[in-house]
């Protein structure tokens, strides 16, 4: 993980020189490209996820990508196929399960999601144990690594993100309606249930993308923290949406740069920056007085 030892020179006060140093290696350029793609996709889908209060489902989709990747490596496929297959598959399961077993209270639904999540992690542990001698890869899968992202991987991330964002753009307006007021939306003929399923699949794609940078356990850093921060700052949907994307980009860029110049893992820096914005926004809101920012009016 140590970028500093690769280059021999560390961080200086000359920002231009630092940036040049950052961009001189192809692996770092690819990491920044991948990070940018992932931040945009995660911000867009995370914004809706926070609004729809599906954080727990999003977390589970992200975690499922770990056994997906470990299983794919074990079976001899590329990890990237495993990431997407597992997350999208889990999205379909979560979309199908809760209502088919009778729409009982939320407690039952969250018990199911929690069980899926733990079982997925157990499968990951099994695959890693079967593969053997895979310890460094394990921490990379769980806590993220920005080394060794290939051109083809960037291309795969880009095409999936573009497809997911295109679909999201198509359904954004009815999805927003269905999220804010599902009953009225259903009465007006909006296919609320179908939108929910499509959204979960898109969320699965985003979670799988983020996993490849931050690791399966730290996906929340890009999926939840930027939208949560933006919704602290403003209640206006378009503004907070734009803010979410911006915050996600800044978090990823700073996180990757910090990880490059230090020996510590990228997942730590990305979560720390993401959380720092969140705390700052919450503190700012408390300082200015909650009355001026009626974020409570937004469900999320």
């Amino acid at each position: 993980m140590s970028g500093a030892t690769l280059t021999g020179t560390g961080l200086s006060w000359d920002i231009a020189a630092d940036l040049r140093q950052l961009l001189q290696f192809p692996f770092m350029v690819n990491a920044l490209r991948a990070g940018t793609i992932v931040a945009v996709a995660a911000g867009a889908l995370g914004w809706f996820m926070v609004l729809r209060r599906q954080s727990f489902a999003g977390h589970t989709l992200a975690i499922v990508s770990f056994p997906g990747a470990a299983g794919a490596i074990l079976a001899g496929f590329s990890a990237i196929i495993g990431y997407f297959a597992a997350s999208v598959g889990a999205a379909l399961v979560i979309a199908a399960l809760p209502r088919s077993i009778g729409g009982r209270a939320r407690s039952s639904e969250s018990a199911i999601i929690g069980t899926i999540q733990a079982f997925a992690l157990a499968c990951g542990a099994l695959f890693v144990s079967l593969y053997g001698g895979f310890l460094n890869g394990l921490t990379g899968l769980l806590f993220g690594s920005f080394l060794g992202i290939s051109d083809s991987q960037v291309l795969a991330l880009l095409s999936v993100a573009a497809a997911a964002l295109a679909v999201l753009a198509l359904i954004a307006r009815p999805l927003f309606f269905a999220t804010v007021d599902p009953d009225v939306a259903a009465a007006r003929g909006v296919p609320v249930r179908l939108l929910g399923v499509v959204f979960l699949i898109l969320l699965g794609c985003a979670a799988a993308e983020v996993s490849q940078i931050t690791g399966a356990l730290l996906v929340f850093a890009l999926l939840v923290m930027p939208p949560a921060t933006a919704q602290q700052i403003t209640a206006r949907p378009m503004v907070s949406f734009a803010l979410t994307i911006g915050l996600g980009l800044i978090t990823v860029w700073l996180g990757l740069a910090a990880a490059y110049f230090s020996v510590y893992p990228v997942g730590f820096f990305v979560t720390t920056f993401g959380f720092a914005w969140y705390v700052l926004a919450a503190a700012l809101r408390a300082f200015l007085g909650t009355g001026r920012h009626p974020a409570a009016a937004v469900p999320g």
Partner: protein
Amino acid sequence: MSSLAGLLGQPFLRYAFVAGAAIAAASGLTGYFVVLRSQVFTGDALSHVAVTGALAALAAGANLLVGLYGACILVALAMAALGHRGQADDTVIGSVFAWILGLGALFLSIYTTSAPNGTSGVNVLFGTIFGLSANQAVADSVIAACVCAALIIIARPLLFATIDEAVASARRVPVRMLGTVFLGLVGVTAAAATQAVGALLLLGLLAAPAGAAQRLTARPFRGLWLSAAIAIFSVWAGLVIAYAAPKIPPSFGILAVATAVYLIAIACTVNGRRA
């Protein structure tokens, strides 16, 4: 039968069976209330704290158990102090715990640089029930038994407070204090279970037996005992599987059995039939 005798002839397996049963009973009992009180996400959060607490202790060169229990209990009490508002907001919990897990990644990296061949970091994540020493097994069993006893003592008022909080507080049940004590117990359980199934998987031991029990019976106390029984069965069956097939990690065996029981429970009750 001779293989069963062989199974229990191994000291490390005896420890695993005894400590595993105690931990499973504690997880099943607390898990039942975790699911009933819709605090599964809180349990998830505590499992993240367990990772970071244990890894922080390892990185600092301290005893793993100190970090594990300290972090879990402190955070559980802090969450209880935040009260209902803190409990309801998944976004806040998610943001805080993603960051705490990020810290865990930092500590893991510090620990692996200082002790390159140490596997404790991975053991924290996925458990080492076959690696328990006699002392650890006794300590875990005693702690888990205390959790079970405490939970059984508060079970009745806690159930009242869970199902109808307003009426319970009107009847002078100390709702808030019960919630705090309960979360503290969940914290202790999480720390104990981390050694058995690992921090990342303990959510399954909390959620799956309880979810299955809730599907099988609507009667709370029957469900409570059933949840504990399913948890113990899962742990024992998982241990036997892992012993029979050494390639399979015990944590996977335990979680696979628990998940299978839950699936069977769902399949049996899919038409809304309940005992």
